[in-house]
């Protein structure tokens, strides 16, 4: 444990070094660039496995395994800023998820990007992204986490705008960057506020860290505006950052646009890892969030998550772009995770994060395979019948879909979603999130089935082909994982829960029947089958016949327009915030051009008048005196300069005479 903690920093530094090296490569060295991304991440994966093994081993001995390693970054005045990294179950599980999925996506990218001109740059950015993400995961300091957080933002910007020649890609990159910055302002404010009260930003520091008992109780005891506990206020500000990064309402607008990036990027960043960073942040600062008798922050998290889950699922129903549907689905699932965190705690949210990472990466990579096979086509209405042309992709995609919908007992999504719904059912504050969650589950099944119908059934419209093994192999691996991971957190054998909390684990089949588990499960199963069945009934026919108009559009044109237009949130922002901003900018320009310029000109005129006066005085009085002085100096200088005639031997003589004088003075003068 100590050993692996000592070298934990290697996990992010290895991909970073690989990225740095590959930045120096010539454009032609494609194999080397890929190797420099994949190799270090493979090593990081091995180290992550070792870290997980260490926590398991250590956890078996002493309960919760957590050890940290800190160092001093810099000191100003009396106080020092310390950074560090932490290894605990949360870190270990997240490390494994990020490195494993990242590695598969890297391998997938070698095939997907094989034709791209800037292959090396892509892998350089991917490695950089992986490094920053792993930095977030291991950091033991909110400051270090924030730094990596911003680096992740940068990497995301670079990767979304990878095809920056496309104006839409450049705009999407900018949008993603600026939108997440809005959330980060809240994050930064919360961090500063926290530092002002606690004096440290380390999470765990032998009892002094911000997540440890003494600080948390101290913060929870203080109150601030509106009688809210200080810990809750700070947590809500930190949660703003998570809203931005995880695409929660109302800052979700960037995430669907981010699909302009290459599909592996969408899979890696906008499905599996980066957007999960917000969830991870909430999980990390959970002790702070849940402090006090009335954790207001958790209520905010729950409501935001529940609303986002349903809201995004609604939009996904009416979209046509295969990646956009998945993007809204991601937003929706992230809402589920937030809800799980708010109602059920770290384990519930993190479990859904883990399962979601696998099956959403699978879906995105599957979508990428479809797009690759169809020659860059993304509109699902123009696809069809791919089931026969791309059988392997279809099988994997189907597994991913079933996992996302939560088909019972076998697929991982069922178990993690069930855990969230179960905890929402038992939430004491309100039952509405539970019902919203059930509605979201229905919608999820509905739109995913719709997608399957459009893409894989019906008559084939394109000449698609199966993708190369480097793409299908990661798909297969992820498909297996998407099934298997769910068994880590069943109510019968809640390994995931006990691992994160450090409690002993037990196998207990009867737990399935206790505590209202069974009704919730049955309800969610019924809802899922209802949604899938309805969708299959509606679209199964139309997929075969007309594709131009959606059946829903025929039924409910105005509702469908709202959904197709994503509730016009972007337009709302354009009309309000962006226009307000432009108005303020115009005002500022006017102020600058008239008032400030006038003032500056006035000052300039005044200065010129004064300097004219000064010049007169200068010429008449000072120059005369100065010239006289200079003349005197010049004459005396000329006279002295005759001694310095450049002849070294003359100087030597002078030195000798002086030396003799000093010697005589020393001998006889100082008696």
């Amino acid at each position, binding site marked *: 444990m100590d050993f692996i903690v000592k070298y934990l920093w290697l996990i992010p530094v290895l991909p970073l070094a690989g990225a740095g090296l590959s930045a120096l490569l010539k454009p032609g060295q494609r194999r080397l660039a890929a190797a420099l991304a994949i190799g270090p991440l493979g090593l990081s994966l091995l180290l992550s496995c070792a870290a997980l093994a260490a926590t398991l081993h250590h956890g078996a001995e002493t309960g919760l395994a957590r050890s940290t390693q800190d160092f001093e970054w810099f000191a100003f005045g009396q106080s020092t800023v310390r950074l560090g990294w932490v290894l605990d179950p949360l870190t270990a599980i997240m490390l494994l998820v990020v490195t494993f999925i990242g590695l598969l996506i890297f391998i997938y990218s070698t095939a997907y990007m094989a034709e791209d001109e800037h292959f090396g740059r892509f892998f350089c950015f991917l490695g950089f992204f992986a490094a920053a993400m792993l930095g977030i995961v291991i950091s033991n300091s909110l400051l270090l986490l924030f730094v990596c957080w911003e680096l992740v933002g940068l990497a995301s910007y670079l990767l979304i705008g990878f095809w920056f020649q496309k104006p839409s890609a450049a705009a999407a990159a900018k949008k993603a960057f600026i939108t997440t910055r809005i959330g980060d302002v809240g994050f930064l404010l919360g961090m500063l506020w926290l530092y002002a009260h606690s004096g440290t930003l380390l999470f765990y520091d032998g009892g002094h860290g911000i997540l440890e008992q003494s600080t948390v109780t101290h913060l929870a005891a203080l109150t601030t505006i509106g009688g809210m506990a200080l810990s809750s206020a700070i947590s809500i500000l930190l949660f703003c950052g998570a809203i931005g990064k995880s695409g929660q309402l109302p800052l979700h607008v960037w995430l669907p646009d981010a699909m302009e990036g290459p599909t592996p990027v969408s899979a890696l960043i906008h499905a599996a890892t980066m957007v999960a960073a917000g969830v991870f942040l909430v999980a990390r600062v959970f002790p702070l969030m849940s402090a006090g008798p009335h954790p207001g922050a958790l209520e905010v998290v729950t409501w935001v998550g529940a609303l986002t889950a349903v809201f995004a699922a609604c939009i996904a129903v009416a979209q046509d772009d295969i990646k956009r549907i998945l993007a809204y689905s991601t937003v929706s699932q992230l809402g589920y995770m937030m809800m799980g965190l708010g109602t059920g705690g770290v384990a519930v949210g993190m479990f859904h994060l883990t399962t979601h990472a696998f099956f959403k990466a699978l879906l995105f990579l599957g979508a990428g395979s479809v797009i690759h096979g169809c020659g860059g086509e993304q509109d699902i209405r123009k696809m069809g019948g791919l089931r026969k042309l791309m059988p392997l992709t279809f099988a994997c995609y189907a597994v991913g879909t079933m996992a996302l919908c939560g088909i019972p007992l076998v697929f991982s999504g069922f178990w993690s979603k069930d855990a969230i719904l179960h905890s929402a059912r038992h939430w004491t504050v309100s039952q509405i999130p539970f019902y919203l969650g059930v509605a979201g589950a229905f919608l999820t099944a509905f739109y995913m089935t719709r997608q399957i119908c459009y893409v894989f059934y019906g008559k084939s419209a394109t000449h698609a082909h199966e993708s190369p093994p480097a793409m299908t192999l990661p798909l297969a691996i992820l498909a297996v994982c998407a099934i298997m991971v769910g068994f880590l957190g069943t109510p019968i054998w809640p390994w995931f829960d006990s691992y994160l909390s450090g409690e002993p684990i037990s196998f207990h089949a009867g737990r399935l029947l206790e505590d209202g588990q069974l009704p919730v499960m049955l309800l969610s199963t019924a809802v899922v089958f209802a949604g899938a069945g309805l969708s299959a009934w509606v679209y199964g026919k139309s997929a075969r016949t007309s594709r131009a108009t959606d059946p829903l559009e025929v039924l409910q044109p105005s509702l469908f327009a709202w959904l197709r237009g994503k509730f016009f949130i972007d337009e709302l922002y354009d009309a309000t915030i962006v226009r307000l901003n432009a108005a303020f900018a115009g005002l500022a320009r006017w102020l600058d051009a008239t008032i400030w310029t006038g003032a500056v000109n006035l000052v300039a005129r005044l200065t010129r008048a004064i300097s004219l006066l000064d010049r007169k005085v200068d010429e008449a009085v000072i120059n005369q005196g100065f010239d006289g002085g200079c003349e005197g100096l010049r004459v005396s200088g000329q006279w002295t300069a005759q001694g310095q005639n450049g002849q070294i031997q003359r100087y030597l003589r002078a030195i000798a005479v002086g*030396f*003799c004088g000093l010697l*005589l003075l020393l001998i006889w003068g100082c008696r």
Partner: protein
Amino acid sequence: MPSELVFYPLAALTLAAAIGAMALRNLVHCALSAAAAFTGLALIYLDLNAEFVGFAQVLVYVGAVAILIVFTVLLTRGADGPWRASAFSPGWVTGLAITGLLLACLVLPVLMSPSLKRLAPPSATAPVADIGRQLMTRYALPLETAGLLLTAALVGAVIIALDETRPVPPPADQSLPRRKPQLEESPR
């Protein structure tokens, strides 16, 4: 134990060689005379039991500095030779007077202080091992500094004396006389 029998003749010879080095008209003779003076000094060091310094003196001064001087003399031939009107600077009378003053200032205090009349203690040696040990301990920093200085001097001397005005051979196709195209188009 330094001996009068050795020292006085040696001192006289060394001084004579030094005066020769400074006064002879032929530069090569001057250089060789200087080398003789350096050798004489080395022998005086040996007489004073400073073996190591004596050998170092021969190695450095006779083996290196004298050769350098001789080389410089040969490389700067034609600058001035024995055929020039005077080998001495103008104003040599005052120069000699100043030298006399300097000599008096140096010698008089020595002769006037009685404590300097003492004789040599019976034995004092400078074993090489002790010198080496001290160079590596107490004088390690000066030793390193001297090494750095010598390296810098080596590089500096090479760079200063490097002949950068040596004509660079022009590229192959420019060294050939160019055929002038306008020759054919010249008006008749």
